[in-house]
């Protein structure tokens, strides 16, 4: 009886070790990754509750109080139009997160589909797709995104699309490479033998089993996407004003008021850096956990 009890206790323990246990193990093994996750949760929290966290309306112009130094009234100072930099930084997280997540989601969806299809069908299709991907990758990412924004016009969604297109080659490459090895597996052969159709094999077997390295690459791209959005906005080709975005705030700060109001340069950049830092740490930990072979790449 005692023995059964022990076994039951063991079963009970294992059942309790659900995702909270896994999170705890992740935190203990990857403290930096956990720090990254905390930063990301903070950023998501800021974006969601921006309206509650703000001190002023981010668009409200208190012109007589323009370029006030950081203090009790304006925590991060005020800009040249007398807008509160703190509230604008808080609201800027929305743009960054939206563009970053959507761009990576779109490029991952398209890149995976194209990469897997390219690997599965092979032949001329594969050759053709690979050449286009090579060509696309020959255009520096920022230049490609910039040209697309010029052609499409600057808006929140066009910036997202432009960044997504610039990232498609990287996702396609890794998805294709992984799918090529998955196709060799016996379970794909078995699926084919029982008469599964191409679509079923592609989605149920090949794609699902090719996802791990894709997720690792996508996580690495998130921080990158946020920087690219900020860079485009900085160049005046991103999210149009007055909607607050960190890159555009940096540009406004850099134009002539740099020495007079260094806080315009410091705070939006700091927010951007913390965001990218969080994504990088989390992405690295995710990579080490999911795919130890990719370490150091």
């Amino acid at each position, binding site marked *: 009886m005692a023995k059964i009890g022990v076994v039951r206790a063991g079963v009970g323990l294992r059942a309790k070790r659900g995702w909270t246990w896994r999170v705890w193990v992740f935190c203990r093994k990857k403290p930096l990754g956990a720090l990254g996750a905390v930063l990301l949760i903070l950023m998501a929290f800021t974006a969601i509750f921006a309206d509650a966290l703000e001190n002023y309306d981010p668009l409200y112009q208190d012109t007589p109080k323009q370029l006030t130094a950081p203090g009790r009234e304006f925590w991060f100072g005020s800009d040249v139009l007398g807008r509160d930099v703190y509230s604008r930084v808080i609201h800027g997280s929305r743009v960054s997160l939206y563009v970053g997540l959507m761009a990576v989601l779109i490029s991952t969806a398209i890149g995976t589909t194209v990469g897997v299809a390219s690997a599965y069908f092979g032949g001329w299709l594969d050759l053709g797709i690979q*050449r*286009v991907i*090579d*060509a*696309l*990758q*020959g*255009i*520096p*990412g*920022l*230049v*490609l995104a*910039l*040209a*697309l*924004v*010029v*052609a*499409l*016009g600057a808006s929140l969604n066009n910036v997202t699309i432009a960044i997504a297109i610039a990232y498609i080659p990287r996702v396609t490459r890794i998805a294709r490479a992984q799918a090529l090895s998955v196709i060799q597996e016996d379970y794909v052969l078995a699926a084919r033998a029982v008469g599964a159709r191409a679509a079923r094999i592609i989605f149920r077997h090949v794609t699902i089993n090719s996802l791990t390295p894709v997720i690792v690459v996508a996580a690495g791209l998130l*921080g990158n996407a946020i*920087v690219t959005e*900020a*860079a485009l906005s*900085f*160049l*005046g*080709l991103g999210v149009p004003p007055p909607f607050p975005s960190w890159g555009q705030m*940096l540009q406004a*700060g*850099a134009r002539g008021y*740099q*020495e007079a109001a*260094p806080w315009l*340069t*410091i705070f939006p*950049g700091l927010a*951007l*850096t913390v965001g*990218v*830092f969080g994504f*990088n740490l989390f992405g690295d930990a995710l990579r080490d956990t999911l795919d130890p072979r990719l*370490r*150091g*790449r």
Partner: protein
Amino acid sequence: MHRYVMRRLVLFVPTLFLASLLVFTIMHILPGDVALAILGTDNVNMRDVENIRAQLGLNNPLPTQYGEWAWGMLKGDFGGRSLVDREPIRANIGRRFPVTIQLAVLTIAITLLVSLPLGVIAALKQDRWPDYVIRSMTILGLAMPNFWVALLVILGLVLIFSWGPPVMYRNFWNSPSTNFQIMIWPALVLAWGFSSYLVRVTRAQVLEVLRQDYVRTAHSKGLATRTVITRHVMRNALIPVITLLGTHLDATLGGSVILESIFGVPGVGQGIVQGANYRDWPVIQSLAMTLVFITLTTNLIVDLTYAFIDPRIQYK
């Protein structure tokens, strides 16, 4: 290896062709009438619109337009004139191209000089203070966007030293010192981001090679540690680093687009940004193609070098 070199060379041309097709398509097929954009939206006279379209060859079928532009790129007149100041794009590129090359060379030189030794030191002193210091620097370098670092550098120079980089650009042959004072900052900022990446890879590679059997053999046959490190470890660890140098060059060129604008360096990147602000598409198109050409050529050179250095490489 000959097969590899041949295939790599043969693939270069279609890739370049497809890339030019992509650049052209982006600038042409996507919505927006260029003639209307040039004239502005109010009070457009239809005859003016027609004149501009005819003048730019916009009434020709797209394949003809592409053919003319591509032939122009090959012939060396680089696709006509700027829409804004009517300057021939050929002159524009002739002026900007050397500047960007100089910036890229300077960046890569600094990166190599700094990151290879640091990567090796970090690996040899693994989990001791030099390793921690070096790794912290790389984490910072990867997290801080280069254009923000650039703004902080300018801010720091002005606030602390009351000195800013010269505003007027001078080329290297006319005034080496002015040129250096301008170019060194964007090069340093770019090199920091670039080396952060390279240091991490070098460190990981060296750590991996240190565990190899031939390193133990080298030690056990009584070679001095210094000889083992330089002859056995470094040589094997640095091969993949060279490829990464090539694949990351496009990021550096992309970064130079924004840094050139911040530091007032009149290179290809700054030209693209100026063109973008005026919707000057012939300039964007030809300058972007120039960057694509630089990127693809460097990648080709790097791949070929790789094949020569590492005889194990096969075309996959």
